[in-house]
């Protein structure tokens, strides 16, 4: 033992010991923890300022805007086909799904309907985007909670669906394939059989994830009962997608309010909900959704009608005057575009309702009282893409 005789040092040691006793009673002094803007758990540049009391979070305030690209302003100087290229970059893991509600809203204003074959292919690519998006979530969420293997498996099997999207559209990440009145092109030869194979691999991947991730004891103990969101709070914050279905709300826009132009009624599928509203529920619902999406794709592949993939539309797109809102069930949740047109080449105003913006605005509510390691579980399970928050 190294005793000290310096009175100043003794006083300081006594003060520290007193501080430690206060800590024992959880009467600690507050501390501010800054997460981000660069953090592996944030899929981009989200900053979260958390005030801590010991290990508990007193308040957590997300600060978005590090990636704001001003799409709502840019749409006012771009023609409709050009906007299609822009909005591909909103949710970059399932890009095709971003195009669909915008195109459907423009089609609604123009009174154009895509031919059946285009509607079928559109729905198939929409569901493939969902798989490409959510399969990465499953791996990445495992990674965030310390399970490296899930991440590698997800990247390996996501490749199958990306290859199919690339084969049909020419773009792995940003297809830019949807057009007002149909699709850019027809399917390549052999695509349907290859897609069947890819979906089979994805179904096997879902089973694997079910065992590897969902069934894992450590995973369960880090997610069960963490970040519980009751249904009424979820509705009030406008949560959508798997986040609200995990709180027991049986609502899916694909089934309940499918806009004309998508053919979800042609497949037999199920909407999954979970009663718990915790991180585990959200992950579990997403896994079921991936499996369900693969089954939808497999069913629709067998029933694609023949015919053209493009309706008769003018070469220069002018959308008649009016306002329209179309919302679809995107991988991250309900995504909608409110288009105000004045009958010109460019829209007058486009309001982009992106799912992650609402999904992440609940963080201050749900993080209050959580422990610091659970903050990662909660953020990861709410599943946001920064492009979808900042637009």
């Amino acid at each position, binding site marked *: 033992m190294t005793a000290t005789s310096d009175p100043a040092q003794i006083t300081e040691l006594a003060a520290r010991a007193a501080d430690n006793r206060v800590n024992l009673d959880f009467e600690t002094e507050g501390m501010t923890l800054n997460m981000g803007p660069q953090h592996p758990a944030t899929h981009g540049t989200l900053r979260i300022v958390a005030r801590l009391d010991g290990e508990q979070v007193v308040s957590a305030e997300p600060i*978005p*805007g590090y990636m*704001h690209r*001003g799409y*709502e*302003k*840019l749409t*006012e*100087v771009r023609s409709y086909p050009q906007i299609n290229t822009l909005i591909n970059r909103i949710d970059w893991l399932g890009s095709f799904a971003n195009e669909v509600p915008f195109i459907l809203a423009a089609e*609604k204003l123009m009174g154009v309907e895509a031919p059946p074959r285009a509607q079928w292919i559109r729905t198939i690519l929409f569901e493939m985007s969902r798989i490409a998006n959510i399969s990465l979530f499953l791996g990445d969420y495992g990674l965030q909670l310390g399970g490296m293997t899930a991440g590698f498996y997800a990247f390996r099997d996501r490749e199958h669906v990306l290859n199919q999207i690339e084969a049909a559209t020419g773009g792995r990440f940003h297809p830019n394939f949807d057009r007002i009145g149909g699709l850019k092109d027809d399917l390549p030869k052999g695509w349907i059989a290859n897609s069947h194979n890819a979906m089979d691999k994805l179904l096997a991947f879902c089973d694997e994830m079910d065992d590897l991730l969902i069934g894992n004891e450590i995973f369960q103990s880090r997610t069960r009962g963490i970040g519980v969101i009751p249904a*009424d*709070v979820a*509705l*009030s*914050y*406008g*949560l959508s997608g798997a986040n609200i279905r995990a709180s027991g*709300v049986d*609502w899916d826009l694909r089934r*309940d*309010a499918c806009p004309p132009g998508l053919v979800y009624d042609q497949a037999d599928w199920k909407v999954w909900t979970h009663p718990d509203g915790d991180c585990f529920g959200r992950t579990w619902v997403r896994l079921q959704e991936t499996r369900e999406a693969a089954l939808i794709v497999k069913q629709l592949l067998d029933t694609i009608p023949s015919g053209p993939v493009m309706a008769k539309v003018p070469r220069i797109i002018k959308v008649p005057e*009016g*306002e*329209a*809102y179309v*919302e679809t069930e995107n991988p991250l949740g*309900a995504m*909608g575009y*409110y288009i*105000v047109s*004045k009958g010109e080449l460019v829209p007058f*105003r486009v*309001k982009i*309702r992106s799912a992650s*913006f*609402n999904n992440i*605005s*609940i963080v201050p*509510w749900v993080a209050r009282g959580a422990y610091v390691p659970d903050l990662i579980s909660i953020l990861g399970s709410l599943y946001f893409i920064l492009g979808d928050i*900042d637009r």
Partner: protein
Amino acid sequence: MSQLSSADTSTETATDDEVVVEVDERRQAVLDELTGRLGDAVVGSHIRPGDDLWVRVTREAWPEAAVAAKAMGYSFFDYLSAIDWLPSPFGRDMDAQEDLVGEPAPAKEPQPIVQGYAGGDTRFQVIGRLYSIQAGMGVHLKVDLPDDDLSVGTWSQTFLGANWHEREAYEMFGITFEGHPNLIKLYLPLDFQGHPLRKDFPLLARRVRPWPGIVDVEPMPGGDDEPEGDGE
């Protein structure tokens, strides 16, 4: 079931024609109930049958309208934003001038303000959408804001999610929401000047940088005198 005979088909065509002029009864019922709850506060409405409903209310009744709609089952908060109805004062004169062939583009003539569905009297309108999961329908609510007082009551007490949406409308349009717990900028730096989504906020990137696509219309060296056609 319907295409059994040609007679069936023709009657169906006739009913189709009637459907076009028919009003949307479900949405009309929602509008009537909302009018019953809010009284004179509903000043405009528009129904597109089978698609959507727009209701415009007075500024005083804006927070009340959210409470009334929530009580009617419209408990899912979709979004809240604003529309600046001023026609954009910027024409080609705001493009980079080297993009233009010949003389610089003349400045654009000012145009009158024309509002959209459910009418309006002012330049700025706040628009919000609520959704009913039971009914499977949404309703758009609009409110006019006078130019000299861009403020309206907050929805954030009724719908917690309105908090961020109102902060976004505040920074992008300069609209104040009275009673909002934390009305600060959301995306923009705190010292940012101006409101980017207003129509009179210039998109400077367009002016200072030539449009990259301009190289496509330059005639090929040694080619025809006339540039190629518009392209496919």
